[in-house]
């Protein structure tokens, strides 16, 4: 895993439960998190960490406990934040992901339709076209960075397509998305300072406000996400409430960026680790949708969400006081063998393959799930048709972020079918 000199994998099995650090993003950067969560699931499924860069918090690591909490939104609130760090009081964006019912339900319903499968059919042809362009431009028989040339490029282009964002400015979308999730307290100091993040959020809001006004009433068909918001009576004046508009834009940008991007890279890694599965899907491309669900489970691109207790509560014998942070480790639940059979196997024909926690569970379950699945399905449909070999040819580099499980670099070589 190419760790730098002077760092080492913590002895998760040897240390006392109290000393286990569940807040260090290097566990994802160097991919040594399995043992930590395996021990927590076995011995201390509701774990308390009194001290971390993000303050004290509880960790919930078993599948069934996570689901039970997701069902009880009255006790386990999504306000004020679903991130382990609290929002700055002067920049609390209104995002329904960080709201409770009933306000959450109204806000979510208002924008739900923009990613509804009815609209996705319209997007499918465009997404396929972009995907083909990207794959056809890849170098042949020489190593390249799959993250840069495929995952990043493709998700950026898809986001730009969905927003009909000015094409030449599209890299801003990815940059903004990266900024929003890169607080120094969850990136082992590698992220951005608060002032820099605020600066970019402001720039983002400004650009999207301009786009809104340019498009409002121009009579064109509602095809992009901005026009879809304008076309719906529930959201037609959203721009007048900048915190809500920005909150929704940000949710759509972040929700549609790291998640899909990192699953696009993860798929390549897993199919290389499990060549038998690669052979199966090559033989039977009808397995692609099922493989996509398995990729999303295996990657779990958003490893956790946070809730906050609204009252004193007892969970599996542990007493959690009102107002404490409770972190739901989806990445752990997705590898919990009490629910997921042979969880460490990447198994594309897995029974009940859609039954995973990567989209969360309950009322906050990922709204863009069908869009994400479609993007990944198209990528693999097109990639498997073109490339006889898709080979990982070097050590992948992973993201150092507690909120994001992903890749920053993935050396790959492809060989095209000879026609």
């Amino acid at each position, binding site marked *: 895993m190419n760790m730098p000199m002077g760092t080492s994998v913590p002895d998760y099995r040897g240390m006392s439960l109290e000393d286990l650090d569940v807040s260090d993003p290097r566990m994802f950067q160097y991919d040594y998190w399995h043992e930590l969560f395996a021990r927590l699931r076995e011995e201390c499924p509701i774990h308390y960490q009194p001290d971390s860069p993000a303050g004290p918090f509880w960790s919930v690591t078993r599948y069934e406990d996570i*689901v039970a909490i*997701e*069902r009880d*939104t009255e006790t386990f609130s999504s306000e004020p934040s679903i991130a382990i760090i609290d929002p700055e009081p002067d920049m609390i964006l209104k995002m329904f992901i960080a709201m409770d*019912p*009933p306000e959450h*339900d109204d806000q*979510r*319903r208002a924008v*739900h*339709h923009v*990613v*509804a*499968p*009815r609209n996705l059919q319209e997007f499918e042809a465009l997404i396929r076209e972009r995907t083909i362009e990207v794959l056809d431009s890849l170098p042949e028989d020489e190593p390249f960075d799959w993250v840069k040339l495929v995952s990043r490029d493709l998700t950026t282009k898809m986001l730009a397509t969905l927003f009909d964002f000015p094409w030449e400015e599209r890299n801003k979308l990815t940059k903004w998305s990266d900024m929003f999730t890169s607080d120094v307290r969850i990136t082992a100091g590698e992220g951005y300072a608060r002032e820099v993040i605020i600066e970019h959020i402001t720039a983002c809001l400004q650009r999207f406000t301009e786009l809104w006004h340019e498009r409002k009433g121009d009579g064109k068909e509602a095809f992009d996400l901005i026009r879809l918001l304008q076309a719906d009576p529930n959201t037609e004046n959203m721009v007048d409430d900048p915190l809500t508009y920005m909150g929704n834009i940000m949710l759509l940008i972040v929700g549609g960026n790291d998640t899909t991007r990192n699953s696009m890279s993860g798929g390549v890694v897993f199919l290389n680790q499990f060549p038998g599965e690669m052979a199966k899907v090559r033989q039977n491309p009808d397995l692609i949708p099922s493989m996509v669900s398995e990729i999303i489970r295996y990657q779990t691109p958003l490893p956790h969400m946070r809730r906050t207790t609204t009252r004193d509560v007892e969970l599996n014998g542990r007493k959690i006081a009102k107002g404490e942070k409770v972190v739901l480790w989806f990445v752990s639940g997705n590898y919990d063998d009490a629910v997921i059979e042979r969880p460490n196997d990447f198994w594309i024909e897995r029974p*009940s393959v*859609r*039954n995973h926690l990567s*989209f969360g*569970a*309950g*009322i906050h*379950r990922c*709204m863009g*799930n*069908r869009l994400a699945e479609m993007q990944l399905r198209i990528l693999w449909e097109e990639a498997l048709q073109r490339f006889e070999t898709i080979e990982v040819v070097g050590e992948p580099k992973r993201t150092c972020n507690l909120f994001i499980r992903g890749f920053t670099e993935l050396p790959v070589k492809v060989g095209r079918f000879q026609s």
Partner: protein
Amino acid sequence: MTVITFIQHDGSERMVDGDVGLSLMETALKHDVPGIDADCGGGAICGTCHCFVEVSDDLPAPDSQETAMLGLRPDRADNSRLACQIMVSDGMADITVRLPEFQM
């Protein structure tokens, strides 16, 4: 025997026999009736087995979890239910459900 009729969004119909103890969602999967995704496998935590009950006897009312999930559906109607929460019981009357345009 309870007969369950699934009406697809395009109007096509499929009638299948219900097994006591299975939910409508499980019944649809067992008979490969399309239109129900059932991502979460029956826990009322994903909302992807949404259906509209057209004809039935009185059914037990949805619980708070089911109501919460139905509340998110942009296409929710008064007869909206999650198919995973309707169990076929002994002596239950025949039931007809219509499936939505899409699940998500």
